[in-house]
């Protein structure tokens, strides 16, 4: 039986799609058959981050409406044989998604896949609601910044009440904190909320800290998930995150600032 994981945040621009792409790719790299679905109908972007935008023929909405089969709509990743992308529709709006339709597609995927990653749109409207509704686990992507933390807390409230698990009284969605765009140097200066601050406020287990990194932009420029960039800090942080998700203990890295020499401190930026 497949495990369904929603990547959500409430706030936009915090790194949901970046995280979805790298998380799904990481699971596939470790040999798990994985599908990643873009729920942001009307504003699809996962295809761009995954570098498959020119191969989108059919999308999620087409499958829900029976205009294409799942097999036709799933895009196989070029690097990983066991990774598939289901793009969002660009021409429809969020009302094109229905709870029944989403449920049917997920059921069909579940027969064949180990993991299904749902990339939620920002906000708490229909698209975001349906992305989390069927989830078994949730990655709550948060920036160390006040509006993002508040929105994440709001989303945690929804995960505890507006999901299938909550509604049927069948356990709860397992929550994981993913702290992105973390800048340890600024934390040390007291300019940014620390990992411990955010953990204390949201009170959910920490899965990973992704440092603010130029590699994230250069990877999205190239259409390759940043986890594939093994020389980058963000790429390695995502790799750790996936390992931890799969139950392998890993120390948290990139949460302390890099040490600068005296010259660096005097003349550095």
């Amino acid at each position: 039986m497949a495990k369904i994981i929603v990547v959500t945040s409430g706030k936009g621009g915090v790194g949901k799609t970046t995280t979805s792409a790298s998380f799904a790719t990481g699971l596939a790299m470790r040999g798990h058959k994985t599908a990643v679905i873009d729920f942001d109908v009307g504003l699809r972007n996962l295809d761009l981050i995954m570098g498959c935008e020119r191969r989108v023929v059919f999308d999620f909405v087409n499958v829900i409406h029976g205009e294409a089969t799942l097999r036709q709509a799933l895009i196989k990743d070029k690097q990983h044989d066991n990774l598939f992308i289901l793009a969002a529709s660009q021409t429809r709006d969020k009302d094109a998604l229905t709870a029944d339709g989403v449920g049917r597609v997920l059921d069909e995927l579940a027969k064949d896949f180990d993991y299904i990653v749902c990339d939620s749109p920002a906000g708490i409207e229909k698209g975001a609601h349906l992305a989390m509704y069927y989830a078994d686990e949730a990655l709550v992507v948060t920036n160390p910044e006040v509006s993002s933390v508040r929105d994440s807390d709001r989303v945690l409230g929804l995960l505890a009440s507006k999901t299938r698990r909550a509604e049927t009284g069948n356990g709860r969605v397992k929550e994981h904190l993913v702290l992105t765009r973390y800048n340890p140097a600024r934390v040390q200066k007291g300019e940014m909320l620390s990992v411990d601050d955010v953990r204390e406020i949201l009170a959910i287990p920490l899965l990973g800290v992704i440092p603010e990194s130029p590699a994230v932009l250069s990877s999205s420029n190239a259409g390759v998930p940043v986890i594939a960039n093994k020389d980058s800090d963000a790429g390695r942080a995502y790799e750790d995150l996936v390992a931890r998700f799969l139950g392998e203990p890993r120390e948290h890295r990139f949460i302390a600032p890099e040490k600068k020499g005296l010259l660096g401190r005097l003349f550095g930026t």
Partner: protein
Amino acid sequence: MDWLKFFRSEPKNTASIAKERLKVVVAHQREGRTNGPAYLPKLREELLLVVRKYVQVPDSAVHIHVQREAGLEVLEMNITLPETS
């Protein structure tokens, strides 16, 4: 002129301000979030035990739903029994 910073006064710790503000906002946000009374999970567990004295049902057979409508709280319980063979 990075070295000049050594002589300037320490900037305010804005992160701690952020944390304090968030604590207030989040506490406020969480009021009324609790999904039904706290005894619900226990009630569900005990119900399952009682039902199982008579019929073997899976964990997912008991559904509990709390609804609030205009000051009225409705506790709805649904127990799905297995089909009799």
